[in-house]
């Protein structure tokens, strides 16, 4: 008998993406460029985060027609985003058959209190997290993959670095703690003791953990990998650059050879103008997408 949508199958799908780059695309042509450059998956959306930021207003799930067109064009997996807590958008994406759903703070949240109960879906979910508590809460809701939130659409890696370092630091703390201390830590983080015990046993998150939010260059990708990411999401960084094809290929190579400065030096050469970035201090509290859905 075939058992579909088990947690092992959902989590396993993310494991197959490790060491790879997932790229945001808004058109069929961009999806083809991404696949050709060696992306392990594409994220189909109507606007890249930098444009969502610029446009303002309510950002929603992309048009299924556009997602479907991209699914028909590439053979690599296709992901798409839904608003935090918007389980109906997720039902629609599952129906059209996307391979992975990102319950994303990049879109305008639909629910300020609850995330989607992701156990109810056969399609796996990825969610953003800024620390271990957020990551384990999303996993207990059924997320099969975690990524840093970073600060999307800024081309500034500083927040992704902060979130990855924080999670890694907290994992090291968990590994070093005695059982009775874990009970207190579970309470502080708002997570169950069982999940913390699993983190302690494995010395890592129980699911794959990618970096996302502000990665704009091969060096950014390699930095995140050296800090312990399992792989990379690139949003605006590729198609807001002067030479998307070249930047996409360079980020793929940098992610694979993240610990080899020789390769990194080679792929970083002559990429042309990178996406214009945003300094964090220019963002108001309302501009900070990472605060959405903790």
């Amino acid at each position, binding site marked *: 008998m075939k058992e579909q949508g088990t947690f092992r199958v959902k989590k396993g799908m993310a*494991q197959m993406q490790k060491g790879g780059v997932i790229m945001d695309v808004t058109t069929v042509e961009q999806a083809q460029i991404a696949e050709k450059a*060696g992306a392990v*998956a594409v994220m189909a959306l109507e606007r890249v985060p930098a444009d969502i930021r610029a446009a303002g207003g309510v950002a929603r799930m992309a048009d299924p027609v556009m997602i479907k067109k991209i699914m028909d064009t590439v053979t690599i*997996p296709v992901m798409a985003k839904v608003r935090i807590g918007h389980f109906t958008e997720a039902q629609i994406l599952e129906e059209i058959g996307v391979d992975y759903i990102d319950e994303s703070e990049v879109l305008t949240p639909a629910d300020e209190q609850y995330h989607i109960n992701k156990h109810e879906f056969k*399609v*796996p979910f990825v969610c953003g997290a800024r620390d271990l508590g957020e990551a384990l809460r999303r996993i207990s809701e059924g997320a099969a993959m975690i990524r840093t939130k970073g600060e999307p659409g800024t081309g500034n890696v500083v927040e992704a670095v902060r979130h990855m370092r924080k999670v890694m630091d907290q994992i090291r703390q968990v590994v070093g703690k005695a059982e009775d201390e874990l009970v207190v830590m579970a309470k502080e983080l708002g997570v169950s003791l069982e999940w913390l015990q699993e983190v302690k046993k494995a010395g890592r998150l129980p699911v794959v953990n990618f970096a996302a939010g502000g990665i704009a260059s091969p060096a950014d990708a390699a930095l995140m990998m050296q800090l312990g990411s399992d792989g990379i999401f690139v949003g605006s960084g590729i198609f807001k650059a002067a030479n998307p094809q070249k930047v996409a290929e360079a980020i793929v190579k940098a992610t694979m050879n993240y610990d080899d400065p020789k390769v990194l030096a080679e792929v970083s050469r002559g990429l042309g103008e990178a996406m214009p970035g945003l300094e964090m201090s220019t963002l108001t509290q309302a501009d900070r997408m990472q605060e959405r859905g903790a």
Partner: protein
Amino acid sequence: MKIGVLSIQGAVSEHLSHIARCDVEAVPVKTKETLCEVSGLVIPGGESTTIGKLIEISGLAAPIRERAHSGTLALFGTCAGLVLLAQEVLDGTKNQPKLELMNTRVKRNAFGRQRESFETKLEVKGFTSPLVGVFIRAPIIVEAGEDVEELARLPEGIVAARQGNLLAVSFHPELTDDRRMHQLFVEMCKVI
């Protein structure tokens, strides 16, 4: 004896830990130099287009083909690895990169998209009890030459096969605690 795991992209650490638990030294292989040291190489699950492209760029594809042909390297392809080993790939991307070593014709994503991915009990030739196969956007072998030995099958096609020093499975033995497929590969490497 050392057994390598192609360390480009995908479920690398999972395979390394399974191989190590079979009491063999497991090494990640990213360069031609490390490839020289191993008797066997696992090509893990991941994205076949990505891995295929990067083994050509990194110069690993040629020595893998050479050593496999001369019988000095055993290969074990899981999921994407099964695709890369195949002689022919149906409905892949244009210029789907591959190693073209196994006398098989393969269909990618043969069971559907991620939503249709599944696990199931599987009878494998030579094993005394079934194993749990985890199939993730899995390919199948739709046709195999006479020199290919079928090891397991589902209604849709062949999901495990062996041809001399080559072993290929559609599913992910690295995602369960059952190490019998890896043990079988280790035995193949010992006689290389």
